[in-house]
């Protein structure tokens, strides 16, 4: 558990806080970890440790330690929720063990499965980003416009910019990482086992060009 259970002190003296803070998290019940829980409870998106550190007036490394400890504690206690680091930061989730109960309760969530076509398009975008629709089409051999549009509406794919030619470049969103339970694209399994020669194939993975 946390360091102290001292009730909120009326003394507003800021402790080690770098800025003007109206509070000192270490003096609150539950300390810094209680404060983290309180903030995470009202957040509706993953919160980076850095942002939490700023709000709490604590060093980021310390906040990261607290978050990892809280996550471990919930697991140990067999809580129905857990704290995860996915996508852009930390967020409360329902525990997977309770998926059936939660599924009975929540109907309006974007958990609909992606079609094979959508998955393949998503895979090409994930591994080749930034990539144009034309390039994805070239790999998949079919027009992918409407699939890309649906992936964008689902928030999995976002526009990253445009090529000089005007073609829109697409990539995956932080929400995609979150849905995958990953914190970075580096967590994607390598294509290599499937395609050893991928690196040596200039002209295939790069800009397609007319061939005789």
């Amino acid at each position: 558990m946390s360091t102290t259970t001292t009730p909120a002190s009326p003394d507003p003296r800021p402790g080690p806080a770098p800025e003007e803070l109206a509070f000192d998290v270490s003096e609150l019940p539950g300390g810094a970890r209680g404060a983290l829980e309180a903030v995470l409870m009202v957040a509706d998106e993953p919160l980076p440790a850095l942002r939490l550190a700023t709000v709490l007036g604590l060093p980021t490394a310390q906040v990261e330690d607290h978050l990892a400890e809280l996550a471990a504690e919930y697991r140990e206690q067999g809580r129905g929720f857990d704290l995860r680091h996915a996508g852009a930061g930390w967020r409360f989730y329902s525990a997977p063990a309770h998926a059936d109960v939660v599924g009975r309760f929540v109907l309006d969530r974007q958990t609909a499965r992606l079609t094979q076509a959508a998955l393949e398009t998503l895979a090409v975008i994930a591994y080749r980003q930034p990539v144009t629709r034309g390039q994805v089409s070239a790999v998949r051999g079919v027009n992918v416009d409407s699939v890309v549009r649906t992936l964008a509406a689902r928030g999995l794919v976002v526009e990253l910019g445009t090529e000089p030619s005007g073609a829109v470049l697409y990539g995956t969103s932080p929400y995609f990482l979150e849905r995958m339970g990953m914190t970075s694209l580096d967590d994607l399994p390598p294509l290599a086992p499937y395609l050893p020669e991928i690196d040596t194939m200039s002209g295939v993975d790069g800009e397609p060009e007319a061939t005789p």
Partner: protein
Amino acid sequence: MATRPEGATAAPDEVEQARSVSSPFEVHLENFTGPFDLLLGLISKHKLDITEVALAQVTDEFIAAVRAAEAGDEPWELNRISEFLVVAATLLDLKAARLLPAGAVEDAEDLEMLEARDLLFARLLQYRAYKDVAQGLGQRLEAQARSLPREVGLEPDLAALLPELVMEIGPAELAVLAAHALQPRVAPTVDTGHLHAPAVSVREQAAVLVDRLRRAGSGSFRTLVQDAESSLVVVVRFLALLELYREGVVGFDQVSPLGDLTVRWTGGQEDEIDVVDDYGDLPVEAVPAGGGLPSTDRPEEGGA
């Protein structure tokens, strides 16, 4: 070619195994019998020569399999059929490239040709690779979906803390925004400039050739395409010559097989020669890297 390449019976490697999961479509050829996916694997490992594969037979068996499935309970999904088409088209390209007379690698053109073959090949492998990782991606998304994130609105007490909203727009601006958002999207125009070489038309190239041959009387094919800026132009000029031959205004002489081709002008000096473009009025377009389907004709994939 051996009746059955080694590896076909032995345990396939992990790549082939991963592929063979989804497709039970089997082919029965003279030199190979087994899943289509395994056939691809063997070709990709150079254990089977593409030129030895009877693609027409593969296609016949594919059509038979699709018909049988349609007659049964579970017709094949469009996805699966179009996937086969992509793979088959690539195999066909690959085979065509391999069958073209090659000879020794002497000049840059030959090198380009070889590279083109590798590209066709690589494109096929690449497609399979993404298909495989897509499967893992789907499994992961599904497993992760067993946990749901907390996504709740702000408690009223906290919402009250927010600074008073400054509304900078009125009804008219709102209407503009709505109209903009609700406007039917122009069918998304994909810039394909990077996929296509500039269009080259048979008719135009025919006019160029007519002009030259009228003046020179004759010339070798080599000289007639000397100024071609791309191999696409070479191809189109060749097609144009065939059209002119059909019109009866040129003749061909070739002393030895694969030797220089001499083109003679046999038409009049004044007649209007207008080649009818058999390739549709559409200009012939370059094929994208890998020489697959013409991308303009790609089937639109359902959004669902």
